[in-house]
């Protein structure tokens, strides 16, 4: 077991952890905006860390390049989607949850 393999394992485990926290957040958070935040964590931190972990395990540069391109697309698109969703919800007048409110 080399250092790179350990590092990649840590990255993959961290990525999986963020995916699970995103899923838990989606179920547990009280309103639309906080749930978008949870989903954003799944897409950016979760998928990003998993892709980085896979990147350390590649032996061919072609596969690595593809993973990098996928990573780039995830980095660009998922925050855009979260941002647009949140802004559309604001424009639509979805109220923001405050401490003490009930779940929506």
């Amino acid at each position: 077991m080399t250092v790179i393999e350990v590092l990649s394992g840590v990255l993959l485990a961290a990525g999986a952890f963020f995916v699970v926290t995103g899923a838990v957040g989606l179920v547990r958070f009280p309103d639309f905006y906080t749930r978008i935040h949870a989903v954003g964590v799944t897409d950016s931190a979760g998928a990003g860390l998993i892709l980085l972990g896979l990147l350390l395990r590649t032996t061919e540069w072609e596969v690595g390049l593809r993973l990098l391109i996928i990573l780039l697309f995830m980095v660009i698109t998922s925050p855009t989607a979260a941002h647009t969703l949140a802004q559309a919800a604001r424009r639509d007048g979805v109220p923001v949850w405050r401490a003490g409110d009930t779940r929506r």
Partner: protein
Amino acid sequence: MTAFVLVNISLFAILGATALAITRMRALYEATMLTALFSLVTGSLFVLLDAVDVAFTEAAVGVGISTVLLLGVLSLTRSREAVTPRRRRLPAALVVLFAGGALGYAAQDLPPFGSATTPVRDHPVTETYLVQSQQDMGIPNTVTSVLASYRGLDTLGELVVVFTAGVTVLLLLGPLTRRNHPVKKDLVLADYRVLRVVSGVLMPFILLFALYVLFHGDYGAGGGFQAGVIFASGFVLYGLVFGLDRVQQVLPQAVLWVLIPLGLLLFMGLGVATVLLGGSFLDYDTLRPDDTAAGQRLGILLVETAIGLTVATVMTSVFFSFTGRGASR
């Protein structure tokens, strides 16, 4: 092996849960998003079965373009499902139970999963395609060889289906129908600055990826159908964000109407050309009699281009028809 089975079972569980959730749902926007999830899970299952070409099509068509088209339809009609009276549900339930029971009964005749003695493995034609195609065409992806050359006529039939669907939608919603209302300016997503900049940046990459999928279909997953859908989704994204007027400046409707039949005509014309060159219909050997493998590759490339052309233009103009209709109400 156990991990593989576990992944399969979980994906099937998600698939079943999604299907159940769709049937329980009254709000059709949510149901549409769940059908996209259904397609995504189906695509993942296809990947597990090593059918990457099918998975690619499922991801591009099921998740991408058909979701957008369904949302376009929903913006034209009511977005809540009408409630069916309870006594009228009984015949439907009987039909569903009967069809499901028949399928379950028939599934008992299927060979077990991963069995080494299925007809697909044992039949001599499998060996022929896998071995012979390397001598006939020298293309690594046998799926492309079968789709575009050995079974070229079937693919022509599929393209005719796509063409007919496109023409039908255009007849119902397109230029031949009368418009009474002046076109109103609807809310344009380009008001969101981040979305505008990001989709502008992504647009060339989407089109480049479509070209890659089209011309790389000989070596990896992909081909004309997938590339056409990716092309269309590029233009659909542009139309969604910047509005119908802007995208029609880039891609005028008249150009689309010329391009829709052009792909089909290219495909059929290639068949006629091979007949005139002395072969049978879609026999690409006649294109280069001195080097038949190169002739086959040329024919496959032309056919894939023709498929991509028609699929892309049909999908784009169906989207244009729906959104143009929405803007004119």
